[in-house]
C-alpha cells in the first residue's frame, strides 16, 4: 500500500469510529433518518461556502455545512411543532428541498468560470481516494473532539435518549443538549461527506448502531461495539478498494457495514433471528407437549379410566400423533394399537410428570382467579409463573383448588391412593 492509501485507511477508520458512536444515540432516539437529512442539507452549505469565499477549504465547508444542516434540523423542529405535519413528512420535505437547493447551487458553480470548481461534485457520492494528509489530520481532530464529548456527556446523552423530559426536570437543558447533539451529527456528516458522499452518509450512522444493538443490552457496550464495527467497515472498505479494481471506497464501506448488520441480525445470541427462531420452536414444542399431557390426564380423571382411546380423546382435544410419539419416546406414555384404535396410558414416570404439570397449571389458574387477595402474601417483586410458584403460596393455592373442586384427583406420589381400584376398565 502506498502512503496515500494509509491516509485514506486512517481517515475512513476515524469516520467509522465517530459515526458508530454518535449513530448509537441517533438510533436510540429513533432519529436514524436525521443523519440522512443532515447530509443532504449540508450540500447547499458547502456550495455557498465555496461561492462566498471562492476557496476549497475543508474547514470553511464544515462551517457552511453545519449552518445549513442545523438550519434543516431546526426547520424540522418548527414544522412538527407549529403545523399539523408529522415528523416523517417534515423529514422528507426538508431533505429534498435542501438537496434540491444544493444541486441548483452545484450546477451554478460548475457553469461558472471559477477554475477551482472541479471537485465539489465529489461530495455527492464521495471520493475518498482524493484524501490527503491534511484532510486526515483535520478529520482526526474533529473525530477526537466528538469522541471526547460523547465520553464526557455520556450520562447526559443517555438521559436524552431514554427519558428527555425527566432529564429536563433534573435541570439538564435538553433543548441545549439536543442542539449540541445535532451539531455533533452535522460534524460527523461533514467528515463523512468526503468519504461516503451525501447519498450514502446516513448508512454509516445507522448501520453500525443497528448492528450493535443486536449484541448487547447495555448502552456503553453498544457504543463500543458500534464504534468498532464502524471502524472495521471503514478499514475493510478501503482495503478492498485498494486491490485496484476501480471500486470506489464509500460504497464499499457501506456494504461492509451492511454485511456486519446482516450477520448480527442473523446470529446474535439473544436478539438475533436464528436464536429467536430456536426459542420460538422450543416454546411451541414444550407448550404442545404440556397441553397433550394435560389433556390425557384430564380426560382420564373425568372418565375414571386408566387407558384412553385416541379416537375418543381426539373428539375432545386437539391431539397430534406426532407429539404422542414424542411422549412415548420420552417414556411418559405407552401406546397399544389394536385393529382400529390406539390405546394410551401413562407409564410410572408419565403419571408423575402429568400430575406435576396439571398441578402447576391448576395452581396457576387459582392464582390468576385470586391474585388480588393473594398479592399481599407475595414478597416484593416476586413473580408467579409456570416456572416458579413461590413455596409459601402453595398451601393457599391448594386450599383454593379444593374449594373450586379442581385439585388433581390422582396423585401418583400418594401411596394411599390405589388408582387401579378406582378405575372402571374400558
Amino acid at each position, binding site marked *: 500500500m502506498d502512503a496515500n492509501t494509509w491516509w485514506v485507511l486512517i481517515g475512513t477508520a476515524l469516520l467509522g469510529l465517530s459515526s458508530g458512536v454518535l449513530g448509537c444515540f441517533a438510533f436510540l432516539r429513533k432519529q436514524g433518518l436525521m443523519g440522512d437529512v443532515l447530509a443532504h442539507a449540508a450540500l447547499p452549505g458547502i456550495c455557498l461556502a465555496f461561492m462566498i469565499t471562492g476557496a476549497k477549504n475543508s474547514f470553511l465547508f464544515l462551517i457552511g455545512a453545519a449552518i445549513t444542516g442545523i438550519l434543516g434540523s431546526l426547520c424540522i423542529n418548527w414544522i412538527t411543532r407549529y403545523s399539523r405535519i408529522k415528523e416523517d413528512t417534515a423529514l422528507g420535505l426538508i431533505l429534498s428541498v435542501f438537496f434540491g437547493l444544493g444541486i441548483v447551487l452545484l450546477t451554478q458553480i460548475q457553469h461558472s468560470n471559477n477554475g477551482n470548481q472541479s471537485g465539489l461534485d465529489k461530495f455527492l457520492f464521495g471520493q475518498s481516494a482524493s484524501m490527503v494528509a491534511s484532510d486526515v489530520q483535520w478529520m482526526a481532530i474533529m473525530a477526537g473532539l466528538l469522541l471526547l464529548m460523547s465520553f464526557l*456527556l455520556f450520562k*447526559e446523552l443517555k438521559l436524552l435518549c*431514554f427519558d428527555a423530559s425527566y*432529564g*429536563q426536570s*433534573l435541570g439538564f437543558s435538553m433543548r441545549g443538549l439536543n442542539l449540541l447533539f445535532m451539531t455533533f451529527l452535522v460534524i460527523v456528516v461533514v467528515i463523512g461527506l468526503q468519504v461516503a458522499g451525501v447519498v450514502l452518509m446516513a448508512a454509516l450512522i445507522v448501520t453500525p448502531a443497528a448492528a450493535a444493538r443486536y449484541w448487547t443490552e447495555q448502552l456503553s457496550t453498544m457504543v463500543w461495539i458500534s464504534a468498532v464495527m464502524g471502524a472495521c467497515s471503514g478499514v475493510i472498505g478501503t482495503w478492498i478498494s485498494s486491490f485496484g479494481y476501480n471500486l470506489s471506497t464509500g460504497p464499499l464501506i457501506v456494504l461492509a457495514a451492511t454485511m456486519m448488520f446482516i450477520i448480527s441480525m442473523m446470529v446474535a445470541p439473544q436478539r438475533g433471528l436464528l436464536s429467536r427462531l430456536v426459542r420460538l420452536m422450543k416454546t411451541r414444542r414444550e407448550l404442545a407437549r404440556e397441553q397433550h399431557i394435560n389433556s390425557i390426564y384430564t380426560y382420564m380423571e373425568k372418565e375414571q379410566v386408566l387407558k384412553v382411546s385416541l379416537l375418543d380423546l381426539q373428539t375432545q382435544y386437539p391431539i397430534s400423533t406426532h407429539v404422542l410419539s414424542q411422549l412415548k419416546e420420552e417414556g411418559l406414555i405407552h401406546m397399544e394399537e389394536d385393529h382400529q384404535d390406539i390405546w394410551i396410558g401413562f407409564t410410572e414416570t408419565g403419571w408423575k410428570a402429568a400430575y406435576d404439570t396439571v398441578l402447576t397449571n391448576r395452581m396457576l389458574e387459582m392464582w390468576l382467579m385470586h391474585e388480588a387477595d393473594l398479592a*399481599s402474601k*407475595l414478597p416484593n417483586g416476586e413473580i408467579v409463573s409456570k416456572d416458579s410458584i413461590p413455596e409459601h403460596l402453595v398451601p393457599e393455592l391448594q386450599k383454593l383448588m379444593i374449594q373450586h373442586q379442581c385439585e388433581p384427583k390422582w396423585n401418583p406420589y400418594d401411596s394411599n391412593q390405589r388408582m387401579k381400584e378406582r378405575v372402571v376398565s374400558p
Partner: protein
Amino acid sequence: MFAPVSIRNLSVAYHRKPVLRDIDYDAPEGELIGIIGPNGAGKSTLIKAILGLLPLASGEVKIYGKPYKEQRHLVGYVPQRESVDWDFPTHALDVVLMGRYGKLGWFRRPKAEDREFALECLQKVGMESFAKRQISQLSGGQQQRVFLARALAQDAQIYLMDEPFVGVDAATEKAIIQILNELKQQKKTVLVVHHDLQTVTEYFDSILLINMCKIAAGPTREVFHADHLQKTYGGRLTVLPETSNMIVTR
C-alpha cells in the same frame, strides 16, 4: 411559612386550546395528595407545568416560596410509565441511578456511593434482586417500581407522580402505597395523579379535583363528595349514583 407547592393563576395552552385555566392551589405539607379528574382534564399537564416542562401561558409556580429552577433538588418526579421506550439497552439499577444525575450535574459520573444509594432505593421498592435485569424483561409493575425507585434516588422533599398505579399488579399497588405512606411519615409531600375513584378515600389525605380549572381542593373527607364529583366529571361519570353511595357509606 411557605407551601411546598404553591400555584397562582396558572394557565397552560397547547396551540390555541387552553388545557388548564386559572389554577390556584397550595399543597399542604407532609400529606399524600391526589390530583383527580377525568381523562383530558389536564392532570399530567399540571404536573409538567409544576416541573417547568411546559411553557406557562400565565401564572406562576413556587416551590417553598421560590421558583422551581432554584428548588429542583427538592422535587422528585415519576413520569408515566408509557412515556419511555422500555426496550432501551440498560438495566434496572442504571435507570435508578439516573435519579442521582441531578445532584451530580453536568459531566460528573456516578460514584460508588451513588450506586449504593440507588441499590438501597431499589431495595425499598423490593426490586434489589432485579438490579441487573434488562428493563424490557421487567413486568409493568416492576417497571413502575423502578421508576419509583429512581424518584426515591433523587432524595427529594416533594414527589410528583404521574399515574403510578396504572397497569400495575395488585402487589405493586400495595407496595407503592406503602412507600407513599413511608414518605408521608418522613414529612414529605407527595402529589399523585390518580383516576381510580374507588381508592381515593383510602389512599389520600387531601385531594385536588380538576377539569381544566380547579373544581375543589382540601381534605379528602370534606371535598370528595357527589356534588364535586358531578362538577368534575360532568356527564362522563355515568355510574355516579352508585359510586357516590359507596363513597358515603365509607
